[in-house]
């Protein structure tokens, strides 16, 4: 079973800083990491490979520095990693991203054949989750989003069943292979990589492709040019005028608070009593 995982390198938004003057991301403040959801994607691919055999390949579009994210995937257990990196990819929104990845996937499909594509639920820098379904649409395979469990893979009948997270529950959906899954964190826990993987990753050099290595590429659909959406203005979230502070000792504070809470009297049902 050959599995392709699309992975992205993202700034760690936990420690991100915004330049208050320009309202732009202070990149130096945020180290680049492997998108956490994608790590779960790779882990799932490695798990499935253990059961069904085959090969796990990761694919990433990004600057040369994104090699590091691919190496991280090799630590988790990926066999091979491709980086598509070219100035002409830069500035892509999700539509242009899915196009570029699709072109690379086409080439990889010709090389090895691909039974399953995995993506993260979303990338934490943009939180969009649009790339996965976009890729699926372009390849012409079904996207199954928000997957929390792979229930079953049957390579003979080329079918798989997965559990999708939906509001207040889940659904089990069956799909022909190949298909594309976007995975939630619940799907697995990313294991602590064994030392041989670490050594392999430290030595590993991803294969880098530029636009010229891909076939039949419509340059107009790439990067900034191929992106229908653009960022207009940016501004810091509004600040309100602030809370009315209640002073005094704790006792007084508590009873004052209760008074304010009772302004919303209709919310509190009185337990007991009133039906009698």
């Amino acid at each position, binding site marked *: 079973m050959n599995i392709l995982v699309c992975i992205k390198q993202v700034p760690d938004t936990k420690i991100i800083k915004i330049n208050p003057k320009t309202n732009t991301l202070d990149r130096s403040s945020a180290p680049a990491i492997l998108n956490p959801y994608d790590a779960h994607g790779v882990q799932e691919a490695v798990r499935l490979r253990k059961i069904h055999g085959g090969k796990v390949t990761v694919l990433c579009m990004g600057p040369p520095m994104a090699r590091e994210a691919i190496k991280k995937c090799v630590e988790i257990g990926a066999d091979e990693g491709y980086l598509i990196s070219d100035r002409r990819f830069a500035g892509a929104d999700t539509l242009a991203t899915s196009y570029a990845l699709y072109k690379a996937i086409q080439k990889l499909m010709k090389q090895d054949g691909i039974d399953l594509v995995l993506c993260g639920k979303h990338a934490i820098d943009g939180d969009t989750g649009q790339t996965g379904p976009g890729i699926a649409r372009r390849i012409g395979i079904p996207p199954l989003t928000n997957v929390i469990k792979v229930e079953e893979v049957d390579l003979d009948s080329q079918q798989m069943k997965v559990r999708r997270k939906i509001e207040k529950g889940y659904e089990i959906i069956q799909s022909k292979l190949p298909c594309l899954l976007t995975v939630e964190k619940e799907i697995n826990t990313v294991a*602590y*990589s*064994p*030392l*041989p993987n*670490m*050594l392999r*990753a*430290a*030595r590993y050099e991803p294969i880098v492709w530029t636009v010229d290595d891909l076939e039949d590429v419509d340059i107009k659909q790439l990067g900034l040019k191929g992106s229908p959406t653009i960022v207009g203005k940016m501004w810091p979230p509004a600040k309100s005028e602030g809370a009315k502070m209640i002073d005094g000792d704790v006792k007084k504070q508590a009873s004052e608070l209760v008074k304010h809470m009772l302004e919303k009297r209709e919310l509190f049902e009185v337990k007991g009593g009133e039906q009698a």
Partner: protein
Amino acid sequence: MSEKFDVIVVGAGPAGTSCAYTAAKNGLKVLLIERGEFPGAKNVMGGILYRKQMEDIIPEFWKEAPLERPVVEQRFWFLDKESMVTTSYKGLEWGKEPFNNFTVLRAKFDKWFADKAVEQGALLINETVVTECIVEDGKVVGVRTDRPDGDVYADVVVLADGVNSLLAKKLGFHKEWKPNEVALTVMEVMKMPKGSINERFNVEENQGVSVEIFGDATKGALGTAFLYTNKDSINIGVGTTLSGMIKKKMKPHQLLEDLKTHPMIKPYIEGAESLEYLAHLIPEGGYDSIPKLVGDGVMVIGDAAQLVNAIHREGSNMAMASGKMAAETILKAKDLGEFSERNLDSYRTDLYDSFIGKDLKKYRDAAHTFEEHPQYFEQYVPLMNRAMNTMFTVDGTPKWDKQKKIMNSFTAGRGKLGVAKDLYRAWKAVK
């Protein structure tokens, strides 16, 4: 699977990376194992990097290394409650090539340095903790890590795992350090606009200042505080021996808080925003605390070997020099075809013959002297301050009388003989 390397270096601090760099450069198959997310991620240092030992490893490193500012002025502040006596040397020649020393932020510098070792062919793995040395027939043959399938082998294991060196301890090379052999230091990196730094410390854009602070900063305990200027941040920290900390019942973070709000210090850091808070031990046992350095298939370098000159605040340079010497010894042993303690022992003799051994020997009594005689820190700094105050307060008293008063204040505290003894003892300790 159990891959074998020529050398495994544990810890990608200045010591380990120097060793890995030198060994890899000379064609050895080197594995460098670091427990942090990346080299330098958690490494703490006041921030002075000395040019010489680094240059011995990478010539003209300042042309590409991520350095903060070359230090052009070294200040010493003897702090009392509301006053201080200062001395300093400023030399603009230090601001030009080949420079004297630099302020650095370890998180950036260590990463860069480790990348250089990787360029030379060393294999670096991060986020991996070495839990013990693998010993077979009394010989160290590899290390065990905390990862699944985590054993890996080598002809020589170099322990550069820093001050606590649990690994060397497990081998029985040293015991738990005593509270007077280590200093506990806390520091903060604080963001400050370039302009404010230049103004407050009276320097140009590409000039740095290092300030060593004595006296009230450590509440009289044996130790120092420091203030270093980076590009657009400053490092402020304070540390005392663990024993001093215990004796005076001080909390390290409180010491730093007090320093930051000290009326003499506060104006320098006003408005600066705290970026990072770090705490770390410094090995300060000196010459007599150096552990066993060499065994069959194993060597100890850097802080793990207690190679710090506390008086001159030198550590990273000794770490680097020891790493380089260790690598050179391994290369010789490789020619001999055997990595026994005997063949590796020239590292130890080289080390003792070098500036490291000599400097540490010179100051071997210093720390103990100051520790045993707290008057140096507790009494003399305030006395110095009062002396200056007396001398320079213009109040109509003849200078001659003032001098007498000052002398009396010194001898009143320690007695005439006491002062003489203190002077002699201090001179002897650092002679």
